[in-house]
């Protein structure tokens, strides 16, 4: 008879550990599809770009377009607004990043880093606090947008200036087409690179 009190691992120990390990890894691999199915589906991701004709937009006018399920503000700014946005010193901004998807993440929040053509300011229209749609056309204390939900003020470059919102309104990827008559929202990275986006 063999001695069963030995401390040596037995074949049974091995099977225990192997079966347990297979169950744990198999379980994790099974759970993942059930979690990942809730992320945006392929067709949702593919719906990521639209074109909008902006040739009829007059100076000082603003339109809101629906893009990826939410609003995007397109504002043709006046000379005065551009000058005002550019005059702001960056250390007065609560959020000092450009939040511009066309530029590297660390680009500073200067007005030049927020636009491709200074005349057109194009930003996503959900307040960075809890997602309400701010009121535009120069509203608020900083001549830009005002969010009535909890009182966030954005300036003429749609940067947060006061209120609970933590970040500037983000700039979606976009390029101009047809000599600036059309804006394409949701541009690819190649298009963005070719369009002349660069950190100022």
């Amino acid at each position, binding site marked *: 008879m063999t001695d069963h009190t030995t401390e040596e691992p037995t074949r049974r120990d091995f099977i225990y550990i192997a079966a347990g390990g297979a169950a744990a890894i198999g379980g994790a691999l099974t759970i993942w599809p059930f*979690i990942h199915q*809730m992320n945006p*589906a392929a067709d949702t991701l593919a719906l990521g770009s639209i074109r909008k004709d902006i040739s009829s937009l007059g100076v000082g006018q603003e339109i809101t377009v629906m893009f*990826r399920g939410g609003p995007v503000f397109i504002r043709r700014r006046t000379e005065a607004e551009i000058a005002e946005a550019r005059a702001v010193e960056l250390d007065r901004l609560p959020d000092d990043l450009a939040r511009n998807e066309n530029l590297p993440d660390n680009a500073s929040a200067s007005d030049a880093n927020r636009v491709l053509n200074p005349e057109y300011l194009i930003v996503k229209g959900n307040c960075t606090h*809890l997602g309400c749609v701010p009121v535009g056309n120069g509203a608020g204390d900083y001549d830009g947008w005002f969010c009535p939900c909890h*009182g966030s003020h954005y300036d003429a470059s749609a940067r947060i200036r006061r209120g609970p919102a933590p970040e500037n309104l983000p700039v979606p990827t976009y390029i101009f087409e047809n000599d600036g008559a059309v804006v394409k929202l949701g541009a690819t990275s190649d298009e963005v690179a070719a369009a002349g986006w660069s950190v100022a």
Partner: protein
Amino acid sequence: MSHQSTYEPKTGIEKWLDSRLPIVRLGYDSFVDFPTPRNLNYWYTFGGILAVFLVIQILSGVVLAMHYVPHVDHAFDSVERIRRDVNYGWLIQSMHANGASFFFVAVYLHMFRGLYYGSYKAPREVLWIIGVVIYLLMMAAAFMGYVLPWGQMSYWGATVITNLVGALPVVGEGIREWLWGDFAVGNATLNRFFSLHYLIPFLIAGLVILHIWALHVPGNNNPTGVEVKGKGDTLPFHPYYTVKDGFAIVVFLMIFAGFVFYLPSVLGHADNSIEANPLVTPAHIVPEWYFLPFYAILRAVTFDIGPISAKLGGVLAMFGAIGVLFVLPWLDRSPVKSMRYRPIAKWCFLIFVIACLGLGWCGAENPDNLVFEFGGIGMPFVVLSQILTAYYFAYFLVILPVLGFVEKPKERPESIEASVLGSSPAAAPAE
């Protein structure tokens, strides 16, 4: 369950079934001959009322689901169709929408009852915790249900609440898109909310069974907080409490019917009669009334706390307000259960109830509006919410732990029987 079974199958078929699946025995021992403290008052009827409302929500919900279309282009119209064209749809939709409110009325009274009589203390901690889980699931079900009619408040309520998750550092934005299944609240969101809204009530039903199981091991607490000691302390559940619960259920259903028939929309919000529009936010977003205290706590945190931003701080406070209920059994150090015999805790509890109602009031108001205004001077609502939030947490984290050591409880009756029938059981008249 925990007491000796007294069921005796009489007919042949009962005997046959009892030796195979003793389900009749389970029902008999749980709801007919279950020994129940003889002094339960009407605050103890809300458990039965809650069970009735779970059934009402499931039955009316299954019917609504036969006519409801979970698609952003059709959801709003399909609910309008239920209310106008589907046979008795106006009745069943009204039952479901108002049923949710009455469900919460009952659960809040049920929970305050537990807080007052110390029902969360040993040996009922697990019972209490299962209750808090049920409450969390009810909130999830109601939140997702309110999104389904796809009105303006549905859409913007969902947007604001899911955006809260975005406050979490690093993972927040990923989780938010994962919840949405899109880049904003949209069709994918509506579909999954419908699926989960259908599922959660059945999870609740399963937990209710565990809740009653955990109740029937130690048995009911009672208004004296003194545990059952002998047979004289209890009465069989049937007919004493089937009748008492039944009476309370009928009265509660009458009030419910008053709302269903005469005030069907008074608890709803007018903005939800406007179809969802992702481009226009309503002037003033408010959740359903039963979430208002938590909404006030969320908005009370307007300042950064070290590395925690105000936005994240608000979210943590809101979830913490419910999380603290899980550890309550270990926070309250007093060995005395019922606040009847706790002279200081009783008043602190009363102020706690007022604080909760006050938070509800703050949640409905614009934070910058003035409260207690006199001649243009007053306190902004946000300051009132901060004071009440501080009291809410202090009640659990400071008052109850400290009172356990410093409060001198009043003398308690020696038994339930003595408290009902006079000082000594011997003096009781024969029944």
